[in-house]
């Protein structure tokens, strides 16, 4: 099964394309059919042992697939489905629901800029533009706007490989991306973890955000 661009799909889209399915969409792949990397299989099986119901593992299993391949590849979804003994269609339906799981290829390094209310008020749109421009043509990088990331105290902010940074100036976008792709510490001093509690920052300018 292919999508016409040479990519294999986890499920046969025969019905929507008016064809007879090549095989039953309800078929659960067997492990020997999918060539699942042992570390992925082990991770998912360990997870399955922890939950009262194996289906609960679907999001953690998809996270494991995404960590391994950079996104939820069709092959990865089939591998997870074989370990969990569910249909690939079931896992794809889950993957396609959630914003952080990617069912299309994306760069391994992920930068999300919040453009929701508080960040928008403090220049989130301009920050997103700056990151998009700075990230243009860079390999292995995925820049996207995002809904509220829960860090309005450091608005406007970005989640860079799942770590929060802010408040950021558009001028810092290029530096952040260069550091990220070079494997260096990104914007030291702008990391959320290093900030004191707002009430302890002291002075009108203490939060660095006034």
């Amino acid at each position, binding site marked *: 099964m292919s999508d016409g661009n040479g990519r294999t799909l986890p499920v046969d889209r025969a019905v929507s394309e008016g064809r007879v399915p090549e095989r039953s969409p309800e078929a659960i792949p067997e492990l020997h059919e999918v060539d699942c990397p042992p570390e992925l299989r082990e991770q998912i099986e360990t997870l399955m042992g*922890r*939950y*009262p*119901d*194996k*289906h*609960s*593992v*679907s*999001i*953690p299993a*998809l*996270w494991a697939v995404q960590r391994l391949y950079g996104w939820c590849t069709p092959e990865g979804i089939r591998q997870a489905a074989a370990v969990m003994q569910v249909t690939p269609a079931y896992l794809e*339906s*889950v993957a396609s*629901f*959630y*914003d*952080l*799981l990617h069912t299309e290829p994306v760069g391994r390094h992920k930068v*999300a800029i919040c453009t*929701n*209310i*508080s960040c*928008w*008020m*403090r220049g989130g749109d301009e920050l997103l533009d700056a990151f998009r421009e700075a990230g243009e043509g860079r390999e292995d990088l995925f820049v996207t706007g*995002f*809904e*509220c*990331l*829960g*860090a*309005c*105290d*450091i*608005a406007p902010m970005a*989640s860079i490989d*799942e*770590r*929060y940074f802010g408040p950021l100036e558009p001028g810092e976008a290029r530096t952040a991306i260069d550091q990220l792709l070079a494997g260096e510490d990104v914007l030291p001093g702008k990391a*959320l*973890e290093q900030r*004191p*509690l*707002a*009430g*302890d*920052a002291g002075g*009108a*300018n*203490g*939060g660095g*955000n*006034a």
Partner: protein
Amino acid sequence: MPETRLLLEHAEDPALRTIDGYKSYGGYATLEKAYREMEASEILEELEDSGLRGRGGAGFSMGKKASFLPRGDMAKYLCCNADESEPGAFKDRELMQRNPHQLIEGIAIAAIAADAGHAFIFIRGEYDSQADILDAAVAEAYEAGYLGEDILGSHRDLELIVHRGAGAYICGEETALLDALEGKRGNPRLKPPFPAVQGLYGGPTLINNVETLSNVPRIVAHGAEWFKGFGTEQSPGTKVVSVSGGVRRPGNYEVELGIPTRELIYDLAGGPLEGREIKAFYPGGSSAPVLTAEEGMDLPYSFEAMAEAGSMLGSGSIIVADDSVSIPHMALRTARFYHHESCGKCTPCREGTNWTVKMLERVVRGEATPMDLDIISSVQENIMGHCLCVLGDSMAMPVSAMVKKFRPEFEQVMDEASERLAVVQAPAEILGAAT
């Protein structure tokens, strides 16, 4: 007025994250007392008497919610809702990041009251760093014997799993959270049955917010009367309030419920930016109907006062809009969020959020007529109360409040935009007429 730090007590100390640090401030003493000396009914009673109201948005009595769980031998579950995704809210993030063991202790004590053998912390996928902190803290708690089998010789077991979501605001809705935790798309369920009766895996389930559960150790340690010494009669306790938007010192401030809103916004968060004036604010996250500065600034910050003013305390998150903010654009930004996050299950929400965005886009582009404002209001009325969950209502409430309270500004934006549109279009029309 300074903060009243209970939940954020010692939060400035990075050692608080570790079990040794937490115990050095007396942590886990209440859990030991609860597991060794207390009956489930005593804990439940203390929680009910304390009047602790849910800190996730709805403000329902935590003790009452726990008391709805049936007794019996069936498997029961406790879920901590850490899917904090309401625009403007970031207080659970702070609590988990700075004091993860306080939450774990609260969960373990609440699990006795609910008779739950399995507990989950459902944390939004974006909070990866906080989830790592929780993972480490949970591992420490297992190691110390505060989680796992036969805790402190009590013959009680508790398994606690930190479960990362994957980016969907709807999963903060408690039944959608259960579906997500069961490994499905996060769609809300029809209620009743309520989760207390039939929740996770069909078993009775207690679902509470991070901040609610973080309050549990102190209430059980010091008693309901002590807790009621803080806050107001109907809103006892303290609240970690997230203040953001057009203020000088955005951040989390823990205050007694019922303090004047002005003190939160001006004294703690530093008031408006240089040269700006506050125009309006969302008192309880983006779902709360906005209050104008005149309406809201001198109200006590409590569940009852905000409800009386026609808004709500919600998750306790204040977003301040100053006079540089265009209210119609803010309404559009708000509506876009709910449109993006609507799961699509119920028609009024799926279509209502979609059309509200389209109409508000027409407003700011100058293609709308005054009648569109009435249609926007009517669409909001037809969303409210007509869906399985309140996601649609959460857009309808703030948007209709903005249209109602700031109608002249909407009309002004429409007029100015349509004038700009006319200037752009005019030459083409003249040209067209000439040929």
